[in-house]
């Protein structure tokens, strides 16, 4: 039961984007469509899951003073793996996410979980935490991407269901800020109701 909590807290209660306000750059930068949001979210989930596992395994070997640089190297290695894999197998998505793939390194969610959670907990708990937080992040990005895609181009996951162009603003940068602002309001309301 407790392990389930470690996994599920990342979705609503401690959602990285809506509650902790971490990892906002990719959240705003890549979510012009739901597919991009999902791709970015899953890439981040992989890095977060793997880095939480590795950090949890080597936590007793790292001297305290160099722990942050060590975490960064671990994270950067997994980001490089994602970068090369995506370039090879999903070139279109890689092109669209562009700069934000290498920037997963500086996503504060990942370093934050390594420092605040994986360095203090055992393997299973850290892995579940990484997976839960990552999927919560992916959920937030997909949701924001879906909202922007529906309003901005009248389609969802590339399937067009409204004729015409939609509200162009939501595809453009200002729409990202405004849509996220209102989504946070809605998520706050949901959180209030459930607790």
């Amino acid at each position, binding site marked *: 039961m407790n392990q389930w909590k470690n996994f599920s807290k990342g979705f609503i209660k401690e959602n990285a984007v809506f509650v902790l306000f971490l990892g906002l750059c990719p959240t705003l930068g890549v979510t012009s469509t739901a597919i991009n949001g999902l791709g970015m979210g899953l890439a981040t989930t992989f890095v977060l899951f793997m880095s939480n596992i590795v950090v949890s395994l080597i936590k007793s070997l790292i001297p305290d003073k160099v722990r*942050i*640089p060590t975490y960064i190297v671990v994270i950067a290695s997994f980001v490089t793996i994602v970068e*090369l894999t995506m370039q090879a197998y999903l070139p279109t998505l890689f092109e669209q996410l562009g*700069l934000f793939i290498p920037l997963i390194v500086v996503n*504060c969610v990942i370093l934050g979980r390594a420092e605040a959670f994986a360095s203090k907990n055992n393997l299973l708990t850290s892995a579940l935490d990484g997976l839960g937080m990552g999927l919560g992040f992916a959920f937030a990005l997909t949701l924001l991407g879906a909202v922007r895609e529906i309003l901005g181009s009248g389609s969802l996951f590339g399937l067009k269901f409204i004729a015409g162009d939609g509200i162009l603003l939501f595809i453009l*940068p*200002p*729409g990202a800020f405004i849509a996220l*602002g209102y989504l946070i309001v809605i998520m706050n*309301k949901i959180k209030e109701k459930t607790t």
Partner: protein
Amino acid sequence: MEYVIIIISAVFVNNIVLTRFLGICPFIGVSGRVSTALGMSGAVAFVMTIATLVTYLLQVYILNPFGIAFMQTITFILVIASLVQLVEIILKKVSPPLYQALGIFLPLITTNCAILGVAILAQQNEYNLLESVVFGIANAIGFGLALILFSGIREHLSMVNVPKALQGVPIAFIVAGLLAMAFMGFAGIV
């Protein structure tokens, strides 16, 4: 002329915060007051300029000749992290007043994706040494401009009656959206 175009494009047209979405964390986090925004912008300008210069040299003289360009992400982030530390130590010795002013903001900069982002963008745009440095400075100015404008608005915002549900971060995002919309007016001038 080239340099003027780089500067105008980085500061206004492709503003790093409002158009490229880099450095959002400090943009939302330390924009509560104009004075802290000024300090943060100063620290970012300092580190961004040096980081762009150093990563350029690293890419051209080490990563490219040895054919290990795929190590870019790891090397750049490590260099930036150590650079921030180095700048902190040097500033402490050389210029205590400047260290006092920027001090608390420096450690935060390592996780500011604007720094790494600008270093990588300078490589992707295939700038030469001088262009890279100009690009770094221009983006630092763009970051400062957005941050200071936004903190000015937020200072006033704290005095008005915001609906309860929107208080705090949500209204900040909506204001940022309006600011981004204003910056869209610059689109197409270069």
